[in-house]
């Protein structure tokens, strides 16, 4: 039985290259790590982009230190990129790294200690530190080598500094290009495409810089050809259709433009800020304004004011910022003013883990507003979804005069993946606000009794003057002193969600339509869950999965789908109690957040498996949980079936 409560530590790579041969595999994960500022990230990014151009599936994640300028040669300072290459589309970051290039032994130690490397990973390491003038450095090298020897790594020493000195005077700037050359040889990358990427990267610098970087690239290629006795081939599958490559935060930024938003407001917060970095650069070219407010609250207020005055606006934030914006969300819901909020989730509660992955804002997003505050919550499952969610959100916000919260997370926000190029439509931009005069006696909340929908008046429209208010109000927006009105208005605000739900289709089951176990997920975990389900199905296990994009309202048909499986279990990146832990009973057990939601809405005994290891789910973890649920009979007895 695979251990259920921790990340499996003993893991062998499925793809170890052998001496003198080219390893052919459909997946390989490589990472480049250096001290901050040595350029491992640039190296990784170019490698990932070029691989995507060559037709490989790619999923990249940044390895980032928590500090801006961490001390050199320390495990805490590891910075770089991890790139999973596939023959076909890669939907998640995978399990372990198969090959690592490290600029010093300390950053390598950090990766080793985090347990992210396969036990038999291949390691290319800068060897200069072994002979350093400083005795402390030599001792640190020796100690690290001893620690690393506990694993089964194949360690190859590379004279990076020495080789680079043949080309440039200061190898600290440019060692990354030498390393790119090593990888280009190992993975048989197209050199022209790499040179093209380097040329573009340094387009705004002197030509000499581009030239020396290309020279370093070739030095790496040549060294690898002479000295590395193996190669790795991840054959790309021919794939029609144009693709773009970007991370989820960039996709949100471009989706903001595609959806026709003209005002976006924010306050700096990790890991959402990079959305605003991108928009800050391009938004004015579209007639858009990016407003950095004095605080999170004001960012929501400015977006709400802008929305009130005509077109929906959007505000970007992360968990703690959502908490601060809560009162304004309530006001938007009460006044039925369209508003879109993007929450790039991080670890919580409180400051939590600002740079790390978690999906624990679900229940707070759904229920975190005091009072009854019906609104829409959607969660993109892929980087492509991050783009299109913006268009969907705006349309819903406007049609339903609603608040729409979009739950992205640090996994999507910083993951980089190629996806089919979006085809933006002029219609997505929406029309300018209607400024035609309002017929006499038409109230600002002319609720349709069946749907709760009403037409919005915007300033500038003659005859439409009204005062929106957070106080309970009637159709005229007059403060309600008649308390039946409150019942009626609450009904109207809630009804809109039911109407929206009636337009949704039941989600599609991945795998067979019925079986022993259904794994349900939401948000960024889709790729890892589906890969795990596929592995378990290959072993003959009767398991399928279901992924939810709409969390409020939930899509129709869930009860019926759940009923076709003996058991239903969510897989999530938030905290849940292990049912076997001390004091934990079926009554007091904290369950995964989606499980809590689904139990209350479907009355099905939904089980949950979740982890808060601050990283994206690995397929093997979910795979382990599936095996655990289906193969461990005693567990099957205690967690019960689907009544």
């Amino acid at each position, binding site marked *: 039985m695979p251990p259920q409560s921790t990340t499996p530590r003993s893991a062998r790579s499925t793809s170890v290259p052998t001496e003198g041969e080219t390893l052919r595999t459909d997946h390989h994960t490589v990472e480049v790590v250096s001290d901050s500022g040595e350029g491992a990230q640039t190296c990784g990014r170019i490698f990932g*982009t070029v691989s995507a151009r060559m037709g490989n599936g790619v999923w990249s994640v940044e390895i980032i230190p928590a500090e801006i300028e961490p001390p050199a040669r320390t495990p805490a300072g590891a910075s770089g990129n991890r790139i999973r290459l596939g023959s076909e589309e890669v939907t998640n970051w995978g399990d372990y790294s198969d090959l690592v290039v490290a600029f010093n032994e300390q950053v390598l130690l950090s990766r080793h200690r985090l347990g992210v490397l396969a036990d038999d990973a291949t390691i290319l390491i800068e060897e200069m530190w072994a002979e350093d003038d400083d005795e402390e450095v030599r001792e640190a090298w020796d100690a690290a080598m001893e620690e690393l020897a506990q694993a089964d790594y194949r360690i190859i020493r590379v004279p990076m500094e020495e080789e680079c000195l043949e080309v440039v005077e200061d190898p600290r700037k440019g060692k990354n290009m030498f390393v790119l050359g090593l990888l280009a040889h190992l993975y048989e990358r197209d050199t022209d495409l790499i040179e093209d990427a380097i040329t573009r990267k340094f387009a705004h610098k002197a030509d000499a810089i581009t030239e020396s970087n290309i020279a370093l690239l070739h030095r790496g290629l040549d060294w690898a050809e002479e000295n590395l006795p193996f190669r790795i081939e991840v054959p790309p599958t021919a794939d029609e259709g144009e*693709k*773009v*490559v*970007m991370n989820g935060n*960039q996709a949100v930024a*471009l989706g903001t*433009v*595609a959806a*026709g938003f003209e*005002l976006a*407001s924010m306050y700096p917060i990790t890991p959402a800020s990079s959305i605003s970095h991108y928009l800050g650069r*391009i938004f*004015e*070219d*579209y*007639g*858009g*304004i990016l*407003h950095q407010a*004095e*605080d999170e*609250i*004001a960012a*929501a*207020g*400015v*977006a*709400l*004011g*802008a929305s*009130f*005055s*005509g077109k929906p*606006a959007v505000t970007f934030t992360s968990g703690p910022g959502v908490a601060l914006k809560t*009162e*304004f969300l309530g*006001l938007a819901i009460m*006044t039925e003013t369209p508003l879109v909020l993007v929450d790039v989730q991080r670890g919580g509660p409180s400051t939590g883990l600002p740079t790390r992955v978690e999906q624990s804002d679900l229940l707070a997003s759904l229920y975190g507003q005091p009072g009854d505050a019906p609104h829409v919550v959607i969660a993109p499952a892929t980087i492509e979804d991050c783009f299109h969610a913006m268009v969907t959100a705006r349309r819903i916000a406007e049609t339903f005069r609603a608040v729409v919260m979009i739950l992205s997370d640090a996994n999507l926000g910083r993951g980089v993946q*190629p996806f089919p*190029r*979006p085809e*933006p*439509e*002029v219609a997505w*931009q929406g029309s300018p606000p209607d400024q035609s005069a309002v017929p006499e006696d038409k109230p600002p909340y002319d609720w349709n009794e069946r749907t709760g929908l009403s037409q919005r*008046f915007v*300033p*500038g*429209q003659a*005859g439409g*003057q*009204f*005062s*929106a*208010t*957070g*106080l309970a109000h009637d159709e005229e927006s*007059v*403060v309600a002193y008649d308390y039946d009105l409150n019942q009626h208005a609450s009904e109207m605000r809630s009804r809109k969600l039911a109407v929206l739900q009636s337009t949704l289709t039941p989600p599609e089951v991945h795998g067979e339509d019925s079986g022993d176990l259904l794994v349900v997920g939401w948000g960024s975990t889709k790729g890892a869950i589906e890969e795990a389900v596929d592995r378990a199905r290959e072993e003959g296990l009767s398991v399928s999965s279901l992924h939810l994009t709409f969390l409020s309202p939930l899509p129709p048909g869930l009860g019926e789908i759940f009923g076709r499986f003996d058991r239903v279990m969510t897989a999530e990146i938030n905290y849940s109690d292990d049912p076997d832990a001390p004091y934990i009973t079926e009554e007091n057990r904290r369950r995964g957040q989606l499980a809590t939601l689904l139990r209350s809405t479907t009355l099905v005994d939904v089980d949950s498996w979740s982890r808060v290891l601050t990283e994206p789910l690995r397929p093997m973890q979910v795979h382990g949980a599936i095996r655990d649920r289906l193969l461990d009979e005693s567990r099957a007895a205690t967690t019960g079936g689907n009544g």
Partner: protein
Amino acid sequence: MRTQGCSLLRRAQDQDRVLEMDDYEGPQARWCPGCGDHSILAATERLLKNEQIAPEETVVVSGIGCSGRFPHHIDTYGFHAIHGRALPVATGVKLHRPDLNVFAVMGDGDCISIGAGHWIHATRYNADMVAMMFDNHIYGLTKKQTSPTTPQGYATNTQPHGTYLPPMNPLTATLGVSNVSFVAQTAEWVPQHLNATLEAAHHHEGFSFVRILQRCPHYTSEMFLDAVRDPDRIELLVHPDGVEAGGGLSEIYEHRRRHDPSDLDFARRLAEKEGTDAERIRLGVYYRDESRPVYDRIRSVPRRSAEERVQTLEEELDRHAV
């Protein structure tokens, strides 16, 4: 003047339409009889009528408190928002629709206590709006709690042994903010002065902060009694670039000081003494500088058609093309 650089929407579109006071009148106000808010409401309606500003091109944003009800009683667009947060909403309206006339209405607790951060930053943004701070030195709607401007020693429900701290001075605080462009003080019981001050604030391009001293007959009826009864307790700041003592004011108020509103140093010195017993209450424009950057103006960007935006987006997607 405000007509410069403004959109077609600025004024009533129908040139033959003549707007009267009743075009702005909303439902009967529900403030207490004798509440100073009635007077400020009337002055605002008069300003809109005098300027012939169409009700539909006007947005009054308020926070929470007695003053928060203001937009319900005037027939313009309004947004009765949340406590302390009128200014971000008003900034959003103005940023998205610079063509609209925006008024932010706040109380003393609303603006300079719970909304203090927004007040400081709105002053610095200097977006083109009139910010009216109704200052009655007390929380009224929640029933007589100490506010930041309650005089030291004054007994309230939360500080029944007397308010502990000396009051905040909203004038010095505002005048201390970088990029401040307009600070005035007036009193609701001097309607001629209130009208003239709101007019000056409206004509100023930028963030016009107007502190309006306001009586609360229910909880602090004695607060401004001396000044209401005795014109000797008041000094008018007069200047052609600020507010003059017209409309019979010069006959009532003997104490008048010529103060050039472009003199920030002197404005700060005058404001510093505000509230000390020996000093008279000063009404007038403390400071005015039309040369400061105006946020909605410097952030205005040319509109793009939907087709242009999609075209530019395609070019941006090219940069990400695989």
